[in-house]
């Protein structure tokens, strides 16, 4: 128990729905006469019987889809929400908030907000004064501190909030999606801060949808879905499982062939698509058939990873291959081969057949095929070329 920072025992949490008029005295009276059964309908389960332990100095990721209950869980660890049943034991000083810039008031100046936010972090006026210069320099807002916060751009506000948050002195930090905001420069600062936290052996609970960040920083992770813990384990296994949740969803849609996944005037059509990875190469084959005469079609593909991020792609026009004319009833085959420099994972292939203007779509098919690229490990980066590592 000595090395445990947070111990969560069988917690459950329900929320009672409050529809528009629920918060009135009238409804308080009418509720008395409602049967118990109908009252239960107003309950939404947010978390069901969750248990886990986080060790001291661990960088712990929590992943899951929107609405899965991650943030509720974090709020309960922070003590903002109370569990309906179960207990949460926290050892050590916890930063009491989970978001950046809590308590910022747009009507106050940057300087006043620094003192207010500092107080929320538990700093006395003197303690804030001692750090004030550093905070302002870190946020790069020297010229703006006496302006009202409402005149700041959102980027400036985030910078100020972050400059404050890194001052927090605590044994346990709870971080909910900080990286969603801010430009590249700011994100770099965030990552540097995370590295420092890891070096200092501070316990961090980190919620994110950015699987690269989770893989890179977290020691362990937990997958939450539909208000339950699906799995806890090493980061790669968990991020893979998380991404599979989305792939499974995509497959279901494939069967339905909804308009969103395939569209075009069908003057030429995709007959079938195969995608394979073998012996360090990826091979994509598309069979195209024409339902009417068609001049100079442009045939292209695009690869997407589990998160739906576009990874690579090309088309016949870009490759300098000219397909002159397809007569009605004719078909043709396009094959692309390229080295498998992508990292381990599941990929989906989108295929597009376009008119020569490269705008009008004849047939566009998202996730026309999928393939799995197997490697000995999974890197937190998109590319995994065949590295040669030599140590002298």
């Amino acid at each position, binding site marked *: 128990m000595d090395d445990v920072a947070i111990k969560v025992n069988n917690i459950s949490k329900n*929320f009672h729905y*409050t529809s528009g008029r629920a*918060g*009135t*005295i*009238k409804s*308080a009276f009418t509720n008395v006469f409602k049967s118990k059964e109908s009252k239960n309908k107003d309950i939404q389960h947010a978390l069901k019987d969750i248990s886990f332990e986080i060790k001291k100095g661990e960088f712990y990721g929590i992943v899951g889809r929107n609405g899965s209950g991650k943030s509720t869980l974090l*709020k309960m660890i*922070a*003590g*903002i*929400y*109370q569990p309906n049943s179960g207990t949460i034991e926290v050892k050590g000083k916890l930063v*009491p*908030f*989970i*978001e950046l810039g*809590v*308590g910022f*008031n747009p*009507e*106050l100046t940057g300087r*006043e907000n620094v*003192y*207010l936010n*500092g*107080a*929320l972090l*538990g*700093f*006395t*006026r003197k303690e804030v004064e001692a750090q004030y210069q550093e905070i302002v320099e870190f946020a790069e807002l020297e010229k703006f501190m006496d302006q009202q916060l409402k005149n700041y751009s959102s980027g400036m506000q985030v910078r100020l909030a972050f400059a404050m948050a890194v001052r927090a002195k605590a044994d346990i930090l709870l971080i909910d999606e900080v990286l969603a905001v801010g430009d590249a420069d700011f994100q770099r600062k965030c990552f540097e801060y995370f590295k420092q936290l890891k070096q200092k052996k501070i316990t961090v609970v980190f919620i994110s949808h950015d699987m690269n960040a989770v893989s890179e920083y977290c020691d362990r992770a937990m997958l939450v879905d539909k208000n339950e813990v699906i799995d806890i384990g090493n980061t790669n296994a968990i991020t893979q499982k998380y991404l599979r949740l989305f792939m499974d969803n995509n497959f279901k849609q494939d069967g339905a062939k909804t308009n969103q996944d395939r569209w075009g005037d069908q003057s030429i059509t995709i007959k079938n698509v195969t995608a394979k990875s073998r012996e360090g190469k990826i091979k994509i084959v598309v069979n195209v058939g024409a339902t009417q005469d068609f001049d100079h079609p442009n045939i292209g593909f695009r690869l997407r990873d589990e998160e739906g991020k576009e990874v690579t792609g090309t088309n016949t026009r870009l490759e300098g291959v000219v397909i002159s004319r397809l007569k009605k009833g004719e078909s043709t085959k396009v094959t692309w081969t390229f080295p498998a420099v992508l990292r381990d994972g599941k990929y989906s292939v989108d295929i597009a057949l376009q008119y020569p203007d490269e705008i009008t779509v004849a047939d566009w098919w998202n996730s026309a095929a999928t393939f799995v690229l197997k490697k000995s490990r999974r890197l937190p980066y998109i590319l995994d070329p065949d590295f040669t590592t030599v140590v002298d």
Partner: protein
Amino acid sequence: MQNIRQRYKYSFILLKQLVKSDFKLRYQGSFLGYMWSLLRPLAIFAILYVVFTKFLKIGEGVPHYPIYLLLGIVIWNFFVEVTMGCVSVIVAKGDLIRKINFPKYVIILATSISALINLFLNLTIVFIFMYLNKVDVRMVALIFPLLVLELYVFSLALAFFLSAAFVRFRDISYIWEVFVQGAFYATPILYPLSLIPITAAKIIMLNPLAQIIQDSRYALVTEKTQTIATVYNNSSARIVPVSIVLISLCIASIYFRKRSKYFAEEV
């Protein structure tokens, strides 16, 4: 032990900052700024003086009647400012409550302290007029701080109760608004107590606010003020309103404590 000290240290730091930002925000963008805290009671006094000494002559028997009135109104205004200000303050600070775990009573204390600062500024004006009107200062004036304490505790108790109840029942703010309007006339603020029948006076004086206002007038302005002791002909009658104050504080803090755990999900 260390933990408890840490906890209260945090509350204290937070309280100070909240009061400060509250004060800064209140007069932001107004030309005269903090001066309004003094100008307001001055203006009220001017109106009262004209209305009650030139037109309505209900307070003819009472010496220094405008000051007598002003003191009552200042006390009443404090009560209204604390309770009305606090009713919705928990909901207004919902953004904060949903995102950070901190002792919620700090919010109520901060609002009440802002009102307390105003009360002291208003009282300064009262004291200045007392000096200008050459009101005799008697030894009994020394109990006035105790009365202010009673007033503060009573207002705070109601503030705790109302703010916690408002989170669940949003009708509370409207009900309270109407209630305050009625209570204004059920409290001897504008009229001297001698104008109403003794049985009614006996009931009215059980209200802690009526007792506080009349006792304060007795202590500061004139011995001719009728207090709960003169109405009942028994000075131990004060036990009733004082007990009401203490009991409300107990009930309100227990209720607030119990409900505050769920503020984050209900606001």
